[in-house]
């Protein structure tokens, strides 16, 4: 969306200044909202006022609003003169047209003066340029929202286009350890953003760099950066403008751990979170899982972060995944051997051990010595008959992956974990433990599998691939 404010203003009904002001402000609002879907914009009663802002930008996770001062003038000299009057609180000074230099006031002067007062001087076309670039390069969308939150200095559409291309090339470059492109991306970001916004995008590039298998020490702009995406950068990504691009999230996902992820406060139904978990389900590692019976009106399954754990919520139950060991909980109804074997067969889970419990506190451990699957053993049915109707399964051990790593599912407590500190990929844990712990309908099993694979977007709705 490109809005030519000069022509829009010329087209206005010139007899009604108040109406004209509203039309101009609404056009600006439209263009800023396209840069950052998470911003809330307040229109003030003022226009082109030296001291009072035209718009005030608010973000949920940021206490300080950012003021926008629209300017009818596009003269570099006028804008520079206004800086001392608007400075404070890192405002945005927004001329409505392309800035032109005066006889002895160049753009460079304006640029230096605005950067030194933590002010961003940018016309709407700078934002429109980034928004347009973002349609083909999602990472540029993050630059647009970063600019709105913490941009400084003078930025017109030409500078914006250059910075957008540099971050795009830097993001792609980091994935293949191209240190020249990555370094230029970092430089571009640092030249137009305040240090805290710049460091979030730099950390993102660094995370992609590390995700590509490179050591963080060879990152082209070594700084005191963390080796992995830190919580604030992740938070920024998850709260920010939706980036409907799986390749992007796959890179992000490759640079984080479940511990990092569960430190965050993520709003319900975060599109970014769905993608990070689905795309990273074979890489994100959890230590423990629990199934909790709970009804909700969600369709299919969605990922959440709540109370420091990753949570998969469906219509009839929730799966809680943790990076720490579980506390024990209340006992559940017993599961018969026949039921367990049916569940294992339906979900294609391989069993290595079953712990059976009979009457009078007696138990039997039925185990394979070779690691072979025991789910089809006829002997198990004979044992069940022998034990009688009081027999139930206390726990079952599933074999995970080629190494047949044991995942013990405690059916009485609806939980699962491995030996001592063993960790499992989220995908393996969910698809092996949940079907053993709880009876799933064929539809539920299908939806559960869907919650662990990439997303296709149709008409704005998230659907399992």
């Amino acid at each position, binding site marked *: 969306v490109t809005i030519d404010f000069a022509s829009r203003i010329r087209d206005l009904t010139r007899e*009604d200044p108040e109406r004209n002001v509203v039309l101009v402000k609404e056009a600006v609002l439209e263009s800023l909202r396209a840069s950052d879907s998470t911003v809330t914009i307040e229109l003030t*009663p003022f*226009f082109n006022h030296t001291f009072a802002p035209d718009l005030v930008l608010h973000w949920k996770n940021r206490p300080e609003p950012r003021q926008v001062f629209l300017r009818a003038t596009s003269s570099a000299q006028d804008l520079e003169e206004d800086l001392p009057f608007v400075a404070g609180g890192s405002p945005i000074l927004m001329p409505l047209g392309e800035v032109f230099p005066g006889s002895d006031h160049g753009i460079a002067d304006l640029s230096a003066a605005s950067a030194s007062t933590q002010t961003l001087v940018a016309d709407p076309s700078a934002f429109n340029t980034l928004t347009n670039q973002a349609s083909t390069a999602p990472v540029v969308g993050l630059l647009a929202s970063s600019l709105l939150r913490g941009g400084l200095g003078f930025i017109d559409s030409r500078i914006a286009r250059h910075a957008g291309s540099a971050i795009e090339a830097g993001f792609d470059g980091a994935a293949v350890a191209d240190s020249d492109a990555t370094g230029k991306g970092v430089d571009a970001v640092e030249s137009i953003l305040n240090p805290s916004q710049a460091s979030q995008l730099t950390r993102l590039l660094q995370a992609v760099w590390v995700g590509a298998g490179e050591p963080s020490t060879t990152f082209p702009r070594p700084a005191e950066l963390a080796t992995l995406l830190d919580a604030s950068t992740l938070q920024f990504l998850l709260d920010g403008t939706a980036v409907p691009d799986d390749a992007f999230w796959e890179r992000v996902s490759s640079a984080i751990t479940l511990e990092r992820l569960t430190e965050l406060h993520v709003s319900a139904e975060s599109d970014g979170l769905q993608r990070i978990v689905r795309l990273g389900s074979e890489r994100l590692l959890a230590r423990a899982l629990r199934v909790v019976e709970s009804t909700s009106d969600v369709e299919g399954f969605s990922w959440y972060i709540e109370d420091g754990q990753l949570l998969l919520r469906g219509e009839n139950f929730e799966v809680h995944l943790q990076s720490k060991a579980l506390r024990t909980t209340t006992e559940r109804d017993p599961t018969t051997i026949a039921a367990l074997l049916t569940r294992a067969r339906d979900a294609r889970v391989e069993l290595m051990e079953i712990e059976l419990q009979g009457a009078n506190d007696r138990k039997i451990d039925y185990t394979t010595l070779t690691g072979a699957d025991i789910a089809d053993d006829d002997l198990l049915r004979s044992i069940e008959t022998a034990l009688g109707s009081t027999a139930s399964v206390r726990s079952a051990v599933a074999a995970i992956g080629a190494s047949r790593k044991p995942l013990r599912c405690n059916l009485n407590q609806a939980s699962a974990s491995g030996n001592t500190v063993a960790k499992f990929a989220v995908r393996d844990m969910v698809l092996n433990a949940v079907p053993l712990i709880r009876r799933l309908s064929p539809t539920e099993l299908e939806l559960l599998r869907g919650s662990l694979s990439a997303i296709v977007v149709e008409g704005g709705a998230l659907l399992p691939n």
Partner: protein
Amino acid sequence: VPRVPGEANHEIGRDGARRAKRWLESTTRVRSAWTNEEANSISRLEFDWPYGGQPFPFDVGGLFYGGAIHNQAFVVEVKKYTVVGDQRAAYGDWLAKAYLVRKAHHRIADQFLFMTWHPFAQTSWTTLCEPSTIVDGILQNKRRIFSPTEQDSCESLIDQAVVTDLVDRLWLIVLSNKQEELVITKEHRALIVAEDIRNEVA
């Protein structure tokens, strides 16, 4: 450093308009304002004389905020002078312009401000906003306001209702450099602005 007198005058005019705008905004009684030089003026500041001559611009336009003049449109003639100069004649022209705007485009401006940095016409100062002074200003410009055939009878052709109505719409303001500094502090103004925004949004 200005190289030619015209350029110097232009810079003085530009500076004066911006300072007048800023001082008016400092009063907290202005909702929006724009100068004639700004590329994206939101409303017109330039008008034509009915009978020839260059079109005449006002230097600043805007909307008032609060009180009885809330949302009323104003236009400003700015004289950033360090001497008396031609101000008395220019003042008469300005009265004629105000009369024309009220008569032909009354929605464009409700209030007319004449802001100068140097006093003028001290001996007739108290009468500068009287109906007779307005009529004098109109007659001073009669060739640009009335047709050639109307020249002998133009005094009777003046719309007296417009003249009477105009008296209360004239604001003659003398500023000084020091006075520009003696305004509400930045901190206090921020409180008022925040309150205005809160009230408007709520």
